[in-house]
């Protein structure tokens, strides 16, 4: 009964990754329910799903908010497999979290085995400018290096919160359309892949 209406719109599966305490859940909750949760409560794994209008199209976004803590690193592989797009989040006030993004990136690529997986590097807590440890340049350099967009957000002020989710979804949608095309003609897909690979390399 409940499945019928949900089954029709396309579902985009987004996974939130990043170190503990960078604001994954805060971003998610801000996006989902327009609320900012002050108190910190480590997440294990939370699921959210919501119907939204993406460029005039009814879609559903499925967000998997993962645990940032190292304790859960072993089970991340399982999550990552189901993800269609990733928001890799760090806190601009904490350099460690920024460094950890490297590891997350590598793990995702390893699991998905796809260099072009939709992926956004997100620097959170941009409202705390005075406590900034990671410069914009530093972060955007890394994003450029990975070939992904870099966006700075604030879960508290809701700055760029919608933007990161919508941008990622657009990428996922574009990629899905690509795949549909490639399933019709394989050759095209392969050439494209190679092209991109070359570019990055």
């Amino acid at each position, binding site marked *: *009964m*409940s499945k019928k*209406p*949900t089954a029709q719109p396309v579902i985009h599966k987004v996974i939130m990754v990043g170190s503990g305490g960078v604001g994954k*859940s805060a971003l998610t*909750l801000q996006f*989902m*329910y327009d*609320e900012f949760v002050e108190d910190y409560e480590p*997440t*294990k*794994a*939370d*699921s*959210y*799903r*919501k*119907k939204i209008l993406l460029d005039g199209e009814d879609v*559903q976004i*499925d967000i*998997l*908010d993962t645990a940032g803590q190292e304790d859960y690193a072993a089970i991340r592989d399982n999550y990552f497999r189901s993800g269609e797009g990733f928001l890799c989040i760090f806190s601009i006030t904490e350099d460690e979290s920024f460094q950890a993004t490297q590891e997350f990136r590598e793990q995702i690529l390893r699991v998905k085995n796809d260099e072009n997986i939709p992926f956004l590097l997100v620097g959170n807590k941009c409202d705390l400018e005075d406590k900034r440890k990671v410069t914009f340049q530093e972060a955007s350099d890394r994003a450029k290096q990975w070939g992904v967009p870099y966006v700075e957000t604030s879960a508290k002020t809701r700055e760029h919160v919608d933007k990161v989710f919508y941008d990622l979804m657009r990428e996922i949608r574009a990629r899905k359309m690509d795949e549909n095309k490639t399933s019709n003609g394989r050759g095209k897909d392969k050439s494209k892949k190679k092209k991109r690979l070359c570019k990055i390399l």
Partner: protein
Amino acid sequence: MAPPPIVSGLSPNEGPPGTRIKIRGENFGSQPSDLIGLTICGVDCLLTAEWKSPNKIIAISGTGKGKGEVIVTTKYGGTGTCNVTFKGYHLTTIGPMKESAVWVEETPLFSWGRHSLSPTSFQQEDPLGLSIEETENKISEDFLINHFPGKCGDITSTNFSPGWFLLENHQNTSFNDLSAGLVHLRRKVQGQKEGQLSFLKANIGSVMDQVDTLVNIWEKYDSDLPKLGNEPTLKLEKAIKESEREARKLFDEVLSRKDRAEKTRNALNVLQRFKFLFCLPCVIERNIRKGEYDIVINDYMRVKNLFHKTDVPIFKDALNEIEKRIEELQKKLHHDLQTMPITVEQQKRLIRYLINLDSPYDAAWDAIKSRSDYINKKFKTIYKYHKSTEKVEMDKKKSSASKFAFNNSQIIEMNTVPSCVNFVDEICATVSEIFPDLWKIGQSYFSGELKVKVEAGRQVEYKHMVMNVIETFCKYIKASIIPNTLDKADRNQFGTLTTPERDEIAHYLPELLRSVRSTYATLIRLDLPNEALDIVGNLLLDLRIHCMSILFQQTTEQIKQLSENWQIQYNGKYMGVTELPIKFLQLVEDVIQIVKESALSCEQRESPLLEKPIAQKELEKQVDCILSAFHGILNNLSSSEDLEDGEDSSPVVSQLIGTPASSQKTGSAKQNIPIWEHRLLIILSNCMFTKNTILDIILTKFKESGFLSVDACITNTKTKLDNLERTILDKYLEQKSDPLVGTIEPSMYLGRFDWDMTVVPTDIRPYAKECINNLINVHSEVTGISSALLDNVLTRIVETIAEELYRLMSCVQKFSKQGAQQARTDIQALQEFFKEYTSDAAKGHFAEALNVVPQLETSEKALVEDVLRQCKGRMRIQLMCLRKT
């Protein structure tokens, strides 16, 4: 209708049972009460759900397993939908050693290892390759068991019986089909055999590998043999056993702990469930202290109903504890019940409590007994108290008597009420007050109001008790007031309160009678049996007679003490009498009134007093006493000439020398006591007055008051008074006429007078005048007291005068003519003067005297007539004195 709730977020999205989940979404209602349903993976978790906001609920997951939805139901939005899934899983580590917030079904967890190995849903294919029949009428299992004992149709069993199998599964299959099946089976077996060989051929490589491995193992085993001995698994076995033991130990410990926990929990449960029972002793104690016995009884009944058959030792202990309390309560109540004073209502309530508490006491009977005892004790206390006060009183009296004159002590006595009166008063009040309670409780006992089984013989005993109380009561009263109506034994038993002097008690008797009567009325109102009432009735009768008797006696005494003041009343209703008879009348009237009001009046259940012969006799006796007392007084007065002083005894009757006036003066000087003659006259007057008036008044009064049998007494007294009157009259005459008559002779011959003289009479002789004057004197004296006496007194005197005259005349030796004329004149004059008081005898005497005197001739007679006329004219005043007007 609000939009249905949608769950769009779960944090976390998986977890074992007991995971705290934040459920987010929309339309969860506007307040906690809107949330009416929550299922997680199909398990209802509403109980743990905590509504936070319209988009947030926190709940704890249940035992739901696997992926499932979280469905929220609200009051206005109905059952909602879910976009996300929750994955419930059971950590395999959940077991006896693992802490868990929820109940985990342990059985499948423990047997998981074995279960997974056993072929659970192994579908047996028909070995003959035939389709399985859908037969309706299967051969029953019993039949098969009978035909194939010890066999079965299971193809995998060692007891497999083909017959059974065929009958069971292929009862209707044709023989051809069965033959085909047999061929199929053969081929299958063949194929299997061939298949083994080909399988080996195909896998020769791995077979060789296996052989190699086996060889390797063998070699290894061989090399290990010297090192580990013949039984290399021994150590392992040991280790396994060891670990098994350890595990068991561990497990045992856990089990024992679990057991202990279970026990504790059970105990707690029991305590909780039977809190009522265990708290009851305290509750009972508290309620007892508060006096809420009804609650105690209620609780006790409940407990008894619930637990009296229990075999559980702890319940028994608790019950014992309660029983102990109840027993104490019973004792207390029982004690209260018997503690006097207490009202009947209180007693009844206590009895009801005791009965409800199943007390071993015969509460109602005890209450009755204690009441009876209480009354008896009270009697004794009252008696003792008054006995002691009496002693004090007596001492006082004695000391006062020794100190003061008798009069003074009497005054003191009047002021202090005698103890026996107080005693009777109090005992009456006590009986009126407490006896009804005894009766009432007895009535309710026997009428079954107290819900007690009345034991046989109780009726008699109770009756005895009541009678005893009444009897004791009566005897006490009798002992203290009319001890003479008791036997000696009773008198000894019921004390010796000294009965006070008659005068003293007389005041109180009517009052006492009233007390006893009021008690009697109380008893009558109680509807006591006649037998009991009669006892009191008899007492009352005795008392009434006694009362009457004492009152009369007292009056008698008072009458005896009456004294004459000799003051004659000249005005008012009764003339010529002193106060004495009037006082007497008053006293008698008073006593009649009192007796009528007290003893004679009939109240409830009393017969008219005078119907009793004893009372009648007593009354007559007492009336007689009263009347004779008065008679005695008069008698005393009339005979007590010498009682007065001697001075007064001087002859008062006038000679020609003395005058009564002078002697009266001396009399008045002496305390107004008149002279003897006057006194006699006064007494006489009183006597007559009493006889004629007072006694009649008294008689009427008696009759009016209901004393009907006093005629005889009155008549009796009248006779007595008649006699007395005569005596007094004689005495008076003796006093009066003797000197008067005695003076005639000397006066006649005064101056050597001789009847043989020659002087022509011109007047009557002085002696005759003196005689007339003397009589007038007496006349005045008597009239001064009471003119009613004139006839009696003067007639008698005239008689004696006439007699004397006759005697004197007959003694004359010789009359001259003139002398005869003189004598005739004198005699006729006297005759004329005394005409009014001349009796027949006197007339005779006068006539005889005239006869003695010689007859006169007509001329001589004329002279006599002439002298007489002249004399009458001269002595007109004297004549008028002696005339009756």
